[in-house]
């Protein structure tokens, strides 16, 4: 397929190449440049000044080098074998590249995204003569112990199955069915199909977002929940814990598949995921977390243009699993690097810049990306969702810069990371003042229902604590002027409770076996205990108890340590703490009655 020459190099400027003498090239066509076959994509068509962005280092490329067309757009290969794999930005498996070029990534390497040799056990669910259309299931392959990979008719195809193979072991290139399309052409169907990464995969309809994605992180689930199919941005300067928060969510959230896109970030962070995830056990399935994770790694020193492609390759894979009826969560770390890649390429193409050198089409691109999230009714009639959690790295930690600002327009949940919290090593450093979630009202019924948290008082407790946190800010301002002694006990008690809430609830130690992840029931109970402590304590103060007495209660220490001491599988301890709390308060009130 490399024989079709579509033009010659005219000018080389970093990853951007101008091409002259264009013949029959197609917009966004996948191309190969020079004798080294560097992979690129045609992003602007003009007879004598077409532009190709190259996904590899262009050292040595000279004018008059040939440019070959592949006859198709940059596409992802979708089929069994993706889970547990680590890809680069243009979906080349990095392990396979390592076998060919050792520790460094050499140029011009072509490796298929899916293993061509491996055989999968395919169980058909259709038969000869069935009328099928795009997105419908042909059968299943058990990809891992817990993942049933459904083989889809490629979206857009429609017709009658002329033949279907029997149950058996096949490679991704073996024909498993032959489709006679409506215009009477024959088309072979395989375990895999290709899909252009820049095109959203079709679905039947969008559904309401009313089930929360449970992440096990208390500050997220309780204060700023995200719905399955929702969109989140995590902005934060360096060192505020973006990656740590994303990794914690990737580890513990209740999605079926995680697509983790490392876009222009550190190499060692990817290595960290690669060494840690296989060892961690998914609490829901009891299997290794790697068995539900797909990694895309395009680290900061890998070619810039592939950062841009990596984001789209990742979301395409996520949509493919959504089409099988799964809940998928996409972590993009970081979307700012992707935006910067756009800026760099735009600059090299000498386009007119808008804000801070970013191209004018930046908001459109961001919107296109986040709109690929959603909870959908698939073409097969199932429900599936793609949740996008995108990290944003604002320069200087300043949220008024273009990427953060434009991202804010297209997401509905905002977890702002706070430098002061991070400096005090309060993790996750999600600010309770700046963050928000528009999904809150949508997911309340889930928390109250028996399928969810089964906690009718959840919303009241949450509102109560949020109110206290906001009151605390105002009180802190007063304290800064006149010192805490000037406040009456009722107000100082609010400060106490907020400190307690921050230490005992919001702060969560990602490296502690018990604390790393809290199930919904634990969160509900912990929240209720702290709110009860506040309500009863405030009454006690009114009837004459002192702050010191409230603090010296034995149960206070139990509350502080409950996140470490009570494991998820034995919540009876929390009921005991609550009972003890009520008793201690009764005693205290009796003293002052």
């Amino acid at each position, binding site marked *: 397929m490399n024989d079709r020459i579509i033009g010659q190099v*005219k*000018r*080389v*400027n*970093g990853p951007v190449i101008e091409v*002259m003498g264009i013949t029959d090239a197609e917009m966004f066509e996948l191309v190969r440049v020079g*004798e080294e076959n560097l992979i690129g994509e045609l992003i602007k068509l003009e007879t004598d000044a077409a532009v190709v962005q190259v996904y590899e*280092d*262009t*050292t*040595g*490329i*000279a*004018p*008059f080098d*040939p440019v070959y067309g592949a006859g198709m757009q940059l596409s992802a290969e979708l089929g069994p074998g993706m889970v547990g794999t680590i890809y680069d930005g243009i979906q080349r498996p*990095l392990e396979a590249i*390592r076998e060919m*070029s*050792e520790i*460094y*990534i*050499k140029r011009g390497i072509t490796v298929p995204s899916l293993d061509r040799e491996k055989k999968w056990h395919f169980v058909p669910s259709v038969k000869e003569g069935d009328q099928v259309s795009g997105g419908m299931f042909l059968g299943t392959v058990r990809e891992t112990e817990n993942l049933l990979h459904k083989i889809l008719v490629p979206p857009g195809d429609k017709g009658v199955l002329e033949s279907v193979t029997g149950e058996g072991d096949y490679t991704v290139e073996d024909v498993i069915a032959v489709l006679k399309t409506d215009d009477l052409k024959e088309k072979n169907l395989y375990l895999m199909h290709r899909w252009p990464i820049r095109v959203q995969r079709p679905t039947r309809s969008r559904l309401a977002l009313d089930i929360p994605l449970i992440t096990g992180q208390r500050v997220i689930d309780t204060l700023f929940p995200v719905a399955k199919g929702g969109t989140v941005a995590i902005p934060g300067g360096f*060192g505020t814990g973006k990656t740590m928060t994303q990794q914690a969510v990737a580890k513990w959230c209740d999605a079926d598949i995680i697509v983790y896109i*490392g876009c*222009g970030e*550190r*190499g*060692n962070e*990817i*290595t*960290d995921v690669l*060494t840690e995830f296989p060892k961690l056990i998914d609490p829901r399935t009891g299997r290794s977390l790697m068995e539900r994770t797909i990694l895309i790694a395009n*680290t*900061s*020193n890998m*070619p*810039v243009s592939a950062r841009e492609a990596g984001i789209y390759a990742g979301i395409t894979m996520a949509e493919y699993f959504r089409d099988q009826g799964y809940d998928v969560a996409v972590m993009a770390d970081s979307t700012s690097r992707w935006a*910067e890649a756009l*800026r*760099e390429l735009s*600059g090299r193409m*000498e386009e007119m*810049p808008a804000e*801070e*050198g970013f191209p004018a089409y930046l908001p459109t691109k961001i919107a296109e990306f986040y709109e690929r999230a959603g909870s959908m009714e698939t073409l097969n009639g199932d429900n599936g969702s793609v949740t996008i959690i995108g990290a944003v*790295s604002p*320069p*200087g930690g*300043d949220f008024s810069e273009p990427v953060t600002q434009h991202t804010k327009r297209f997401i509905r949940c905002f977890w702002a990371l706070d430098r002061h919290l991070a*400096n*005090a*090593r309060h993790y996750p450093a999600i600010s309770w003042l700046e963050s928000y979630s528009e999904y809150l009202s949508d997911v309340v019924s889930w928390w109250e229902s028996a399928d969810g948290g089964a906690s009718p008082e959840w919303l009241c407790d949450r509102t109560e604590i949020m109110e206290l946190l906001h009151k605390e800010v105002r009180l802190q301002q007063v304290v800064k*002027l*006149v*010192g*805490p*002694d000037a406040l009456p006990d009722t107000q100082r008690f609010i400060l106490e409770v907020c400190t307690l809430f921050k*230490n005992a609830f919001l702060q969560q130690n990602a*490296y502690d076996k018990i604390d790393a992840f809290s199930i919904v029931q634990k969160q509900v109970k912990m929240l209720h205990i702290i709110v009860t402590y506040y309500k009863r304590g405030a009454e006690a103060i009114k009837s004459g108890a002192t702050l010191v007495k409230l603090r010296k209660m034995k149960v206070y220490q139990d509350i502080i340590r409950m996140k470490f001491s009570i494991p998820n599988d034995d919540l009876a301890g929390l009921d005991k703490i609550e009972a003890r709390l009520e008793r201690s308060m009764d005693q205290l009130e009796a003293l002052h009655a």
Partner: protein
Amino acid sequence: MPDKTTKSLLSGREYIGVDKIDGPLVFVSKTHPVGYRELVECVDKQGHVRLGIVLESSTNAVVVQVFEGTSGLTLPGTRVRFSGEPLTIAVSKEMLGRVFNGLGHPIDGGPPQRSDIELDVNGMAINPTARQYPRDFIQTGISVIDGMNTLIRGQKLPIFSGNGLPHNELAAQIARQAKIRGTNTQFAVVFAAMGVKHDVARFFTQSFEESGVLENVALFLSLADDPSIERLITPRTALTLAEHLAFNEDMHVLVIMTDMTNYCESLREISTIRGEIPSRKGYPGYLYSDLAELYERSGMIKGYKGSITSLPILTMPNDDISHPVPDLSGYITEGQIVFEREMDGRGIYPPVAGLPSLSRLMKDGIGEGMTREDHPHLASQLFAAYSYVKDVRNLASVIGEEELTPLDHTYLDFGREFEQRYVSQRKDEDRSIEETLDLGWEVLSILPVDELHRITEEEIEKFYGK
């Protein structure tokens, strides 16, 4: 269209006369097809060869960036040869103990280095799956680093400093004292100076000499009065040697690069001359990727014994940590050691700011079996307590110290002791990790037990007040 043989034949051609010279850039037209980033030799009238690389190549003209500066070049009299290859340097273990310029040519009067191994200075991206996650604790003997911002072998941990602050002293102290406990491994040091003053270079040479490690150090100097453009290639040649030493010779290499701010300024200079669209403060949009190409060359590789630990130093213009250079560096490196002018003013050495400093790889390199079991919680508690001290100080500056509660007074005492005894140390003081941790407990014991939320009861039992 030219194939490989024609290309190599054409590369023998020499062009006499260039079309335009603009700063460090030379424009040559009507050439054969020249490859992007090819090595170029520019010969001036006196016959001196200056090296450069191709920055842009098109059918009309080639843009060459000349590392040794363009002063003295003439339009008709300059001869240009394109080598057909990217810039490479010959590397060998014998380069340790010697001094080179930014391009890797010896400037210590000795003979040029000989080696069969020629490596492309641009390097290649390490495959993330080939990386080994770094987790070996390096003891630097400096409490505030070992105890609270632990350096790990294979890490890239920059020092964010300011003009006049003792970053050179600290870097030299680390280079002298760094060791892996329980092993005899010696570090080889690769030192890259970009646009720094002669005194600074001399300070480092002297300090290496005094501690007797000079034969394990390779210096690459591109000093303040060398052409600014040479700074762009200096860290690359240095890192190429470091990679060779680490991954071909199994050595543990510590790379010190100073001053990254000068490097970035040279990059800005080139970018401006080429008329590129700037992003923040005139720096080019690719500053992040360019810095990443340097920083990401450190690390450890599965199956290889050696490692590259890098310690870039940068001065924050106007002590502003949100300036693009420290900001973008912080997004790439694995933490940062931030200096605070106010602490320096109070005579605290090293003036490491407690809160903004961070080591990202610390979590996996400390604790039982690596340093001591109480290390993680102790560090976390010290951070939390010190952060509260900062709040109390702010409060005290408004309402006066007398108005503070007794507890807050205790915190102020803690803060003072922490800075004076724990952070502060002599420039030749080499504290073992046990000394550092014990000292940490000593200052922490000033605080009442109830305040220690991040420490387990067993640890309090064992270490508190001892």
